[in-house]
């Protein structure tokens, strides 16, 4: 026998009260003046045997009433045989990750899982506790009707979700319910990539269903991105398509097809389309639909506009001039005075890429220039030890002369790279400062291959008037929205207010623009993980090991799932009703024995 609410067993202590009263009945009580006490004495003497027996019976009945009520309150269960099951707990986990949308045998796999879940819910009794947990860790508890309604609402996620965490959550719910015989019913496609790390579910029994057939062959856009993010006005879309054979694709920007092509298996797609749109655009690379349509398109975002105009001052050095010339030849920058690149002491306006002076004698003039420009940073005393730079893609660059950058009051900037423990390159509002001159005598950065793309990125994304940010992740992932953003523009064009801080990416793949005063300043790009497109499954026999549960049984049909979901509680019966009947009978017996009192009350 077990108890659903064992704390109530403490009430059994109250059963001692009638016993004590029975034993102490000659020592307690009020003193009542009663002249006919002699008749009372005579009545007791003449009926002593009957009274003693009656009192004993009353005491036993009262003890029985209290014991029966205390036991009933503790909700005991006992294995009495027969059909049905005792009140228990069942948490149904539906792995509705993106891969559950795959069409098998003419219908989505998730539809089959929902049928199985309904069958399990149908086998529940009204006194069971039920939960539904989905791969996005959404938990629904309540009646069977509420669970059925929630099952109907489930759709495949836009990403992988976290099925192991969902299973662990379900196990915790069952364990926390305290109901004996509680189990977890897991409905999953058994995807190997999803069940790599066994969740911690302890002793909670799991009944798992997964398809036994081989998964369909799947083609998927596993990655897509604009390179660079800022197109002036042209850029590149780089994508990777997972396919066992050649695949045709098409590239759309703002809903218009701008390129088409086909690619060989696992070959990278690189497209440099001609796009007439300007500003922030939504793009996608799509392949032909297959059994799993959720990964047949990949989204990207890019900013398209004219190349920034750059003027290189003499103090910037020949290497900087050559690099800008190369960028100009590639169309990434143009001639003009919009952006200045030069040594600090000669820069007179922003935006500007400011370098440290080659000659330390110019240090004072350089700092005065920074002050004049309103830049809250100063160059420190020159340091000539050999150091290695870190950050912003410049890892490994050697620095033999640098001026430690000293923050002034009100400095608010991103430190892009460091030398030792001091900032070397910092970026702020319309400025980027490099703590060394762009000269091989001070650093080998101008000589490195990373220099040219870094310079293009700095000019295009940090000093350009339309600089912005693209934040990528899987659907539903947590990301941090940068400062200055005050709204979001969803793929359907609707807008919502937003503030800087943690935000969850949309549940569906696509591009959401970050806006500031109604104008797009960046984008959130949600794409499913590449691993979610790998539909390889654990065989049923190995799935139990992948789940990491001590008690796992795998089933292959709805009937078995419904039966096994409650078999741990099967045959066990609630004894509440029999105990209440016993208490009622004892009450009737007590009322009969104390009939005088009952008649008086009537």
């Amino acid at each position, binding site marked *: 026998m077990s108890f659903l609410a064992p704390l109530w067993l403490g009430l059994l202590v109250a059963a001692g009260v009638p016993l004590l009263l029975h034993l102490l009945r000659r020592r307690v*009580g*009020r*003193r009542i003046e009663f002249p006919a*006490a002699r008749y*009372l*004495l005579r009545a*007791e003497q003449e009926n002593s045997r009957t*009274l003693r027996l009656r*009192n004993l019976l009353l005491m036993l009945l009262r003890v029985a009433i209290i014991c029966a009520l205390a036991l009933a309150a503790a909700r005991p269960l006992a294995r009495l045989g027969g059909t049905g099951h005792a009140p228990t707990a069942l948490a149904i986990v539906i792995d509705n990750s993106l891969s559950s949308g795959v069409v098998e045998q003419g219908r989505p796999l998730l539809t089959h899982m929902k049928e199985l879940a309904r069958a399990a819910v149908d086998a529940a009794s009204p006194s069971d506790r039920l939960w539904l947990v989905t791969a996005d860790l959404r938990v629904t508890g309540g009646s069977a009707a509420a669970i059925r309604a929630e099952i109907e609402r489930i759709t495949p996620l836009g990403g992988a979700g976290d099925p192991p965490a969902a299973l662990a959550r379900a196990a915790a719910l069952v364990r926390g319910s305290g109901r004996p015989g509680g189990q977890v019913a897991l409905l999953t496609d058994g995807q190997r990539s999803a069940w790599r790390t066994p969740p911690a579910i302890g002793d909670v029994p799991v009944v798992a269903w997964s398809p036994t057939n081989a998964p369909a062959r799947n083609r998927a856009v596993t990655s897509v991105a604009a390179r660079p993010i800022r197109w002036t006005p042209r850029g590149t879309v780089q994508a990777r398509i997972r396919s066992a054979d050649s695949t045709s694709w098409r590239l759309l920007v703002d809903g218009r097809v701008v390129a088409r092509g086909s690619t060989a298996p696992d070959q990278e797609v690189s497209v440099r389309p001609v796009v007439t749109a300007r500003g922030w655009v939504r793009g996608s690379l799509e392949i032909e639909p297959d059994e799993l349509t959720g990964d047949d398109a990949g989204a990207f975002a890019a900013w398209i506009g004219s190349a920034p105009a750059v003027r290189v001052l003499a103090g910037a050095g020949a290497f900087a001039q050559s690099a800008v010339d190369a960028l100009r030849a590639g169309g990434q920058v143009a001639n003009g005075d919009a952006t200045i690149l030069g040594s600090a002491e000669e820069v007179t306006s922003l935006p500007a890429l400011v370098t440290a002076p080659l000659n330390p004698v110019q240090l004072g003039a350089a700092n005065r220039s920074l002050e004049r420009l309103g830049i809250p940073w100063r160059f420190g005393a020159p340091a000539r030890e050999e150091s290695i730079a870190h950050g912003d893609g410049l890892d490994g660059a050697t620095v033999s002369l640098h001026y430690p950058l000293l923050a002034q009051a009100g400095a608010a900037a991103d430190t892009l790279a460091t030398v030792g423990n001091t900032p070397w390159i910092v970026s702020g509002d319309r400025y980027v400062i490099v703590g060394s001159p762009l000269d091989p005598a001070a650093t080998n950065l101008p000589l490195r291959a990373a220099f040219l793309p870094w310079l293009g990125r700095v000019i295009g994304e940090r000093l350009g008037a339309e600089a912005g940010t693209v934040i990528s992740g899987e659907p539903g992932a947590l990301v941090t929205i940068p400062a200055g953003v005050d709204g979001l523009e969803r793929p359907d064009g609707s807008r919502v207010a937003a503030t800087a801080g943690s935000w969850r990416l949309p549940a569906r793949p696509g591009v959401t623009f970050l806006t500031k005063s109604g104008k797009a300043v960046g984008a959130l790009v949600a794409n499913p993980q590449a691993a979610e497109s790998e539909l390889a499954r654990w065989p049923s026999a190995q799935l139990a090991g992948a789940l990491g549960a001590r008690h796992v049984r795998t089933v292959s049909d709805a009937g078995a799932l419904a039966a096994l979901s409650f078999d741990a509680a099967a045959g066990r019966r609630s004894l509440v009703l029999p105990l209440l009947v016993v208490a009622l009978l004892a009450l009737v017996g007590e009322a009969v024995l104390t009939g005088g009192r009952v008649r008086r009350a009537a």
Partner: protein
Amino acid sequence: MTSTASAMRADLLDPATIAALGRIEVTARWVVDGFMTGLHRSPRKGFSVEFAEYRPYQPGDDLRYVDWKIAARSDRWVVKQFEEETNLRATVVLDVSRSMDWTGASARLTKRAYAERLTAALALLLLRQRDAVGLIRFDATVRSAVPPRARHGQWRRLMAALEEGGAGLASSAAPALNQAARLIQRRGLVVLVSDLLLDANEAMQSLRGLRAAGHDVAVLHIADPAELELEGAGEALFHDPESQLEVPASAADVRAAYQRTVEEVIEEWRSRCASIGAGYTLVRTDQPFGIPLRQAFAARQQLP
């Protein structure tokens, strides 16, 4: 008494209600007045050969005793009353022990208060019939004794005796009954008014002696309803204030057995009284005075 109270027949009102309206003397008059109103025949008895006086004819009087000559002369109907057998000599023996000074509910009279009012009413009723009435009050001993008289002023003496104290720690009826026998020199009526929480054998012996002396005996057993039914519930120590007897019991548990015992006791008294030719009446203190009065009066009616 107000006209409303008159109309309500005081002998049929709740004893506690009527007792709250005035002293024993006054309430006894109301009760007897009400009681007389309810009679359909003349209460007067005792017609014999020795003429005593005339009195107006009342409906119910035997027509044999109407003085037809006076009726013919003066057109007034009067009946003749005769001295020798008109007066009965009655003595009420009233128990005023501690056990009588008790009530089971504050809304009811104590047994003693009830018995005193009943005694007063009975005495007044008898006196109005020109019967001689005496009173003996007793607890452990005889507290007071008023010899039976029918003359004017006896009522006052009886009332004065009823005002005296009592509540002794025992009920000894035998001396009181014996004294009653001594006070009544010729055949008469002895009415024992008591809760009978006394030595039954001793009392019965005295009653038997009274009967042997030719007296008529009536026992009015005064009982509080709580004594008959054992009210209340729960464990308690029941204490007899008179005998100091203490009995622990749960009223709910022993109620049925107690009620059986009380019924047995009452039946014992009834049968023992019947065996010596004495009348026995159980009087509950929640009964209107008219009921026991009528029963006692019925006993009187059967006397010569």
